[in-house]
C-alpha cells in the first residue's frame, strides 16, 4: 500500500510495505524526505552542537598529544607513537560533523527563525548559541594543516568565528545579567551559563596562539570576571536545583570545564604553566572529583539516551588537556598517572557516546522527540507525525 501525502504540512512516514505503485512511492519518498528535513530542522537546536564541541575537544586533545613536546617522560613518548592518520581521520570527521550541523542550523535560522528566537529567550538555550563559535575555534586550533604562522587566513577565520559572534553575544547576555528586569543573573544562572565564559576563554587561547597578546588578555579578563560572578552565584544555588531539568544534569560537568579552559588560556598567554594555571587546574580537578563522587546526581539523566549526554565529553577532554600540560610542567610520576587516567577516561567516554549516538540515531530521526529542551511546538509536531504513522489508503 502506498502512503498518501494529504497535505504538505503533515508528515507521512512511509511504513515499510511492499510497494505496488513504484512511481507513486518515488514521489512520496521525495516529499517525505523534504518533510524529514523539515522535521530535523524543527527538532534541531543549538544543544546539538555539543556533539561538535566534544569532537573538536577530542581533536585538540589528540593534536596536542601528538604535537612537539618537551616532556621526556616515557608515558608521553609512548603516546607519541600513535599514527598520525588516525588523528587526521578524527579531525575530518569532526569537521564534517560541524559543517553539517552549521549548515542545518543556518537553514533553521532562515526557515524557522521564530524557533531560534525562542531558543534565545530560554535560559538554557541561549548559552548554547556560543557552542558553534567554540566548536569552530577548536577545530581551527586543532587543524592539521593550519598553523598560526599561516597568519592571514588564520586571522580572518579567527575574527569571523571568534570576535564577531562571541563578542556580540557577550555584550547582549552579560549586559542582560545586570541590567534587564527579568533576565538578571540570579534568576537565569544555571550551569550552562559557563559556556559563555568558556567561549571567551577559547577565544583568548586562540588569540594568544596567534601572538595577539592584548586581545588574548582582553578576552581572558572578560571571561574570568564573569566566571567569578557566575561561580559564586552557582554555588549559592539561590533557587535550588529546580532551574535545570534533571535530564540536563550532564551539564554539571561544565563546572570543571571552565577552570580547565582558563588554565589553558592562561598558559597560552603567560607562556608557561605557572602558578595561576596550576591553581585553576587544581580547582578543576577538585570539582571533577567532587562530581564523580556523586553518581546519584546523574542517575535520572542516564535512564534514556539524549543529546545531553554529549555534555560529558568536552569537559573531560579539556581537563585531560590541562593535565597534559601540567604533567609536562611538573615532571613526575603522579602527574603523568593522572594525565593517563584522565586521557583514558575522556577517550572512553567519547567513543561510548559515538556508539550510543549511532545506535540511537535511526530512532532519533524518525520518531518521538528525545530532547529534553525541545520546544513545545516541535514536540506537538512530532506527536502529530507519530499519530500519522498509519497504513494509509490509496486514493
Amino acid at each position, binding site marked *: 500500500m502506498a502512503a498518501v501525502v494529504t497535505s504538505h504540512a503533515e508528515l507521512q512516514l512511509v511504513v515499510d510495505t511492499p510497494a505496488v505503485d513504484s512511481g507513486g512511492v518515488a514521489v512520496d519518498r521525495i516529499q517525505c524526505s523534504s518533510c524529514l528535513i523539515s522535521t530535523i530542522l524543527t527538532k534541531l537546536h543549538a544543544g546539538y552542537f555539543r556533539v561538535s564541541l566534544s569532537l573538536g575537544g577530542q581533536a585538540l586533545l589528540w593534536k596536542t598529544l601528538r604535537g612537539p613536546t618537551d616532556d621526556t617522560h616515557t608515558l608521553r613518548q609512548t603516546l607519541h607513537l600513535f599514527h598520525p592518520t588516525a588523528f587526521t581521520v578524527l579531525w575530518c570527521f569532526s569537521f564534517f560533523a560541524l559543517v553539517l550541523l552549521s549548515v542545518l542550523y543556518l537553514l533553521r535560522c532562515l526557515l524557522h527563525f521564530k524557533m531560534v528566537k525562542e531558543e534565545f529567550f530560554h535560559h538554557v538555550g541561549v548559552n548554547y548559541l556560543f557552542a558553534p563559535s567554540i566548536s569552530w575555534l577548536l577545530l581551527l586550533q586543532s587543524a592539521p594543516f593550519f598553523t598560526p604562522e599561516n597568519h592571514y587566513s588564520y586571522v580572518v577565520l579567527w575574527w569571523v568565528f571568534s570576535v564577531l559572534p562571541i563578542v556580540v553575544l557577550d555584550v547582549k547576555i552579560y549586559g542582560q545579567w545586570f541590567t534587564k528586569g527579568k533576565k538578571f543573573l540570579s534568576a537565569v544562572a544555571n550551569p550552562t551559563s559557563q559556556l559563555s565564559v568558556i567561549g571567551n576563554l577559547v577565544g583568548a587561547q586562540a588569540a594568544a596562539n596567534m601572538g595577539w597578546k592584548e586581545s588574548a588578555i582582553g578576552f581572558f579578563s572578560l571571561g574570568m570576571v564573569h566566571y567569578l560572578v557566575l561561580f559564586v552565584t552557582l554555588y*549559592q*544555588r539561590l533557587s535550588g536545583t529546580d532551574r535545570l531539568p534533571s535530564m540536563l544534569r550532564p551539564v554539571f560537568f561544565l563546572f570543571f570545564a571552565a577552570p580547565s579552559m582558563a588554565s589553558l588560556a592562561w598558559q597560552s598567554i603567560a607562556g608557561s604553566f605557572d*602558578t595561576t594555571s596550576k*591553581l585553576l*587546574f*587544581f580547582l578543576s580537578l*577538585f570539582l571533577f572529583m*567532587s562530581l564523580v563522587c*556523586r553518581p546519584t546526581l546523574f542517575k535520572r539523566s542516564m535512564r534514556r539516551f539524549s543529546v545531553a549526554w554529549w555534555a560529558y565529553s568536552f569537559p573531560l577532554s579539556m581537563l585531560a588537556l590541562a593535565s597534559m600540560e601540567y604533567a609536562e610542567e611538573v615532571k613526575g610520576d603522579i602527574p603523568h598517572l593522572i594525565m593517563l587516567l584522565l586521557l583514558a577516561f575522556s577517550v572512553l567516554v567519547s567513543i561510548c557516546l559515538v556508539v550510543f549516538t549511532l545506535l540511537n540515531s535511526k530512532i532519533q530521526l524518525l520518531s518521538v522527540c528525545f530532547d529534553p529542551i525541545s520546544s513545545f511546538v516541535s514536540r506537538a509536531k512530532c506527536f502529530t507525525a507519530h499519530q500519522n504513522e498509519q497504513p494509509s489508503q490509496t486514493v
Partner: protein
Amino acid sequence: MDKRENHVSIELQESASAEPVPELLKLITSSEVVDFDSIMPESETSVSSNGHQRKFSISISMPSSPTGATSAGTKNVLDVEYNGKGFNDSSSVKASKPKPKGVQFLSQPMPKGSVFGEAAPNIKKLKDKRFNSFKTWSGKLERQLTNLRGRQQSESESEEESTQNSGREVLPVDRYFDALEGPELETLRASEEIVLPDDKTWPFLLRYPISSFGICLGVSSQAVMWKTLATATSTKFLHISLTVNLILWWISITLVAVVSSIYLTKVVLYFEAVRSEYYHPIRINFFFAPWIALLFLALGVPPSVATTLPVALWYVLMTPFLFLELKIYGQWMSGGQRRLSKVANPTNHLSVVGNFVGALLGASMGLKEGPIFFFAVGLAHYTVLFVTLYQRLPTNETLPKDLHPVFFLFVAAPSVASMAWANIQGSFDYGSRIAYFIALFLYFSLAVRVNFFRGFKFSLAWWAYTFPMTGAAIATMRYSSAVTNVLTQTLSVILSVVATLTVTALLVTTIVHAFVLRDLFPNDIAIAISDRKPKPQNKWFNLLRHGSSDHDIETFLKFTNSESKDIEVALKIPTAEATRV
C-alpha cells in the same frame, strides 16, 4: 488498651479518691510525679528493656487503687532490669530511684504522661528508653522490639515509640532552622519541644558536643603563636624563650588526646547523637576542627622535639580532610536542601580555613604541588562563602542579627591564606600582602565594635573563635619580618598580647563554668529536636494555661533563669503528650 483503661480508671478514681484534690494548676516537679508514674502499665516496663526480652511480666490490669505492693513490684522489675543490663549512664541509676511512697493519683490538669507513660522524665527506664534512640543501633533494636511486642501495645503507644525511634532518622535541614535559633543554633524556640527530657541531666556523653574541639583549636594556635614569637626575626628583641611554646604544645597534645578520646567514645556509644550533630547546619563545620587542631600541632612542634616532620604525616592528615570537604562542598554545589544560600553561616569558615592551614603546613615542609592544590580549593570556596556572607541574603536564616564572637572567624581565612601563600611563593609577596591587609581590616572593624559582643551565653565553641585572633597575630609577625619597622613590630606585639589575654580570660571563664557553676556541658538541646513541629494546640493550651506567662516565655528565650525553663518544659511536655491522643 491497657492505657486507655488506665486512663478511664484514673479519671474515675480522681473523682472518687479520698485524697485531697490538689489545685488545678500546680507546679509539679519531677520527684512528685515519680510515684504516679511508677504504676505505669506493664507494657512500659517490658518495652524499655533495651533489647532484652521481658524478664518480668506484671499484669497490672486494673489498678483501681494504687497499692504499695504494685509499686514495689514495679520497683523490683526496675531493679532487676537495671542490674541485668548495665546501662551506660550509671550515674543516673543512682540518682533517681523511684521512692516507694504510697502512690497518689494527683489530679493534674494534664495527666503528666500517665496515659502514655513515657513522659515522666525521671523514671530511669523511661529516660533510658529515650536516650536509647541516640545510642548506636539501639534505635534498630528498639524497633525490632516494638514490632515483636507491637500487637500487645496500644496503638498510640507504638506510634509514640515509632516516632521516637524514627525521630533519629536524618532530619531535613529545615527542621533545624525551624526548631532552633540563635547564632549557634543552640536555643530551642518556645514553640518547639525536644524528644529528651530537659529537666534531667543527660548522660555526659550525650551532652558532649563536637564544638569542644574548639578548645584544642584555641590552645594549639597559641602554641604556634608563641613559637613564632620566639623564632621570628622581628620579635627577637622580646627574647621570648621557647619553653613557653614547649609547655603550650604539650598541653595542647594532651587536650587533643583527651577530647578526641571522649568524642570517639561518643561515636562508638551514641552514634545517633553524632549523626544528629553531623546534620546540624552549624555543628557540621566543627567536624573539621580536629583536623585543623592536628595541623596546628604539627605547625607548632617545638624545635627541641622535632625539627623536620615526615612528609607522609601531611598526606595522612589531609586525606580525611579532603574526603570531608568533597562531601560538604559538593552539598553546596548540587543544590538541594543544604545549599549554601540556605545554610551559610560564619562557622562555615572553619571548613574553608583548613585548606589554608594544610597548605601552610605542606609548604613549610617543602612540598610544592599539594599545598597549591589545597590553596586553590580553599581560595575558590572562600570567595563563594565570603560573598554569600557579606550579602546577608534574606534566604539565610542563620546569620545572627547582633554581633557574636563567631564573627571573628571572618579574620581566620585571609590571615592563614597570606601565610600559606608566602610559604608557597617563598616570600611575603603582593598576594600575601593583599590577603593580610584584608584580614587586618576585618579584625579592626570587629575590634572597634567590641561593645556589641555582649550578652551572649558562654559556650565551649567560643574557644574556636579565639584562633583567628591568634592567626592574625602570627600573620602580623610574618609581615613584620618582611617589612620591619617600629609600627609593624608594635602591631605584632599588641595583637599577640590581645590574643593571649583573650585566651586567658576564656580559660578563667571555662574553669568557672566547669567547677563553680557546673554548667560547662548543659543538655545539648540542639541534637534532640523532634522530627516534626508540635501541633498548634500546644500554644493554645500554653496560653490558656498561664495567661500571664508571656513573661516566662520571654525569660525562657533569654535563657537566664533555669527555673523558669523548668516551668516551661515541665508543663510543655504534658500538653504535647495530651494532644497526641
